[in-house]
């Protein structure tokens, strides 16, 4: 049995095809990105080795730090919004009629393409014919904001669309985790006189702390590398007011064809994502791991 199941040829035959995809199209490129970052290279033509030049330029690039600030701001908002999603999931996981239908409705925006969602929100935010401003005018606002054209508001307007798209995803994850908490524990606590808030705070939340950790990583890292809605809705504008790290990198790569510098940005983005993932895991690591059974 063990001999058959450790046949090296079969293992190689099964693992290598999938692993080659991962190695050639994911891992080798990230190494190359770091390497290209050391070059002056404009896509066509020869690369010229310039050492750490691009990375030094990056550290001094105010526009990059502005976009990094926006990315971290999005990460902060996404992480904070998790509290709201957790509350909705807690309500939903109580004995609510139609809980299944609710969580399905919440999920719909996350399933649709970011391009379609972005185009839809462009229309929602349209200054004169968008549904948002028509609503504001209808309730008596005389000078509704121009949303995406206003550099002070544009970033938050785009954030709102992003949070709207992902809300159902997190509610669904929390709901699934809460449904895994054995009802016997809840009943025992109730008999001992615990109210619904105590049950939630002292019993349910500790039991799903592992899942909460995963969602914090997903929300923060997902925000740091976020691109789609921002690129389609504003392209980072007006005048960089909604630029994030990924859109800044993309603009340098495929609008200015500055492949060397944008590779440096791409590599830096990768480092930030990996370091932040590691940091969150480190900070939230705990010895007293709670188990259901």
């Amino acid at each position, binding site marked *: 049995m063990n001999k058959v199941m450790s046949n090296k040829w079969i293992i190689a035959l*099964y693992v290598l095809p999938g692993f080659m995809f*991962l190695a050639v199209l*994911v891992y080798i*490129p990230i190494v190359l*990105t770091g390497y290209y970052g050391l070059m002056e290279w404009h896509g066509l033509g020869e690369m010229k080795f310039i050492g750490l030049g691009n990375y030094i330029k990056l550290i001094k690039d105010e526009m990059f730090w502005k976009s990094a600030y926006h990315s971290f701001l999005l990460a902060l908002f996404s992480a904070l919004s998790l509290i709201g999603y957790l509350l909705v999931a807690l309500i939903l996981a109580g004995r609510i009629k139609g809980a299944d239908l609710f969580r399905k409705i919440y999920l719909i925006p996350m399933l649709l*393409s970011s391009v379609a969602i972005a185009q*839809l929100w462009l229309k929602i935010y349209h200054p004169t014919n968008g549904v948002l401003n*028509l609503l504001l005018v209808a309730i008596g606002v005389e000078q509704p904001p121009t949303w995406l054209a206003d550099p002070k508001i544009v970033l938050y307007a785009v954030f709102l669309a992003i949070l709207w798209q992902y809300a159902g995803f997190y509610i669904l994850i929390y709901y699934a985790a809460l449904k895994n908490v054995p009802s016997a524990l809840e009943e025992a606590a109730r008999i001992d006189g615990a109210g619904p808030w105590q049950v939630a705070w002292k019993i349910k939340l500790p039991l799903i702390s592992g899942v909460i950790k995963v969602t914090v990583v997903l929300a923060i890292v997902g925000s740091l590398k976020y691109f789609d809605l921002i690129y389609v809705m504003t392209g980072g504008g007006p005048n960089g007011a909604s630029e994030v790290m990924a859109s800044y990198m993309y603009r340098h*790569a495929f609008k200015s064809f500055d492949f060397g510098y944008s590779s440096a940005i*791409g590599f830096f983005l990768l480092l930030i994502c990996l370091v932040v993932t590691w940091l969150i895991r480190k900070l939230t690591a705990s010895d007293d791991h709670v188990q259901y059974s």
Partner: protein
Amino acid sequence: MTASIRWRKLFYSLIYIPLIAVALLQIFPLVWLLIFSLKDNQEVFTTAPWALPSTPRWENYVKVWSEGNINVNFINSVWITTVSVVLTVALASFVTFAITRMQWRLKSLVLGMFMVGLMIPVHSTLIPLFSLFTKIHLIDHPLSIILTYTAFNLPITIMILLGFYYTLPREVEEASIIDGCSVNRMFLQVILPMTTPVMVTTAIINMIYNWNEFVFVNTFISSDKYKTLTVGIQNFVGQYSTDWGAIGATLMISILPILIAFFFLSNQIVEGIAAGSVKG
């Protein structure tokens, strides 16, 4: 006693208010999209946004389907998504079987590499991939996106499959081996058929991801004849930026397949999305 029951009932009905409010928030923009996709500009600009169209203009849909390249883009999305999904689920099944059922030394390292793949930003791979595909003449070729979709979806697919494979009883393999079954036959004829439900789940999740993917197509594909719907609608909307009905119809066409799939397969989709993250 009766008073306390009445209070409790009132409290429980109040709890529905936030739930319904969130549901309305999530669904209203889409309802508005459906409404304006059936109007002409005249009506969009003069009637209330929530007013139903006087006569629904289905011709908006007919017009955008044949004008521009929406029909070509749609067919591209269908076949590129299908090929990538089949390839991803097949490769991932082989890898997951070897990782969960076979004994070898490097398996936790290999699994770890697949899982870290989930955290890697697409943008950190774009330029090397672009230059690789240019060198091997796959730029502006559908294979470039099929291959990248497969590579980038393997981690999440394996993650969902893992949970299911771990629950399969060992006795299945033992019995097959004692019966003189080879590993290949055991996997292909005994194990793989048992994983059909989870393969369906991963296939649906992959389908949604590929159907909606934007960055890779936008970067690697430049000919209209190979573009998929996401990039297609982006170009189309750019050209017809003032025709609200046409834009609405285009967006509806692009999201309808997913909405229909969700209507029939919502349980699998919900389970797949939950399994992909909760068990991680």
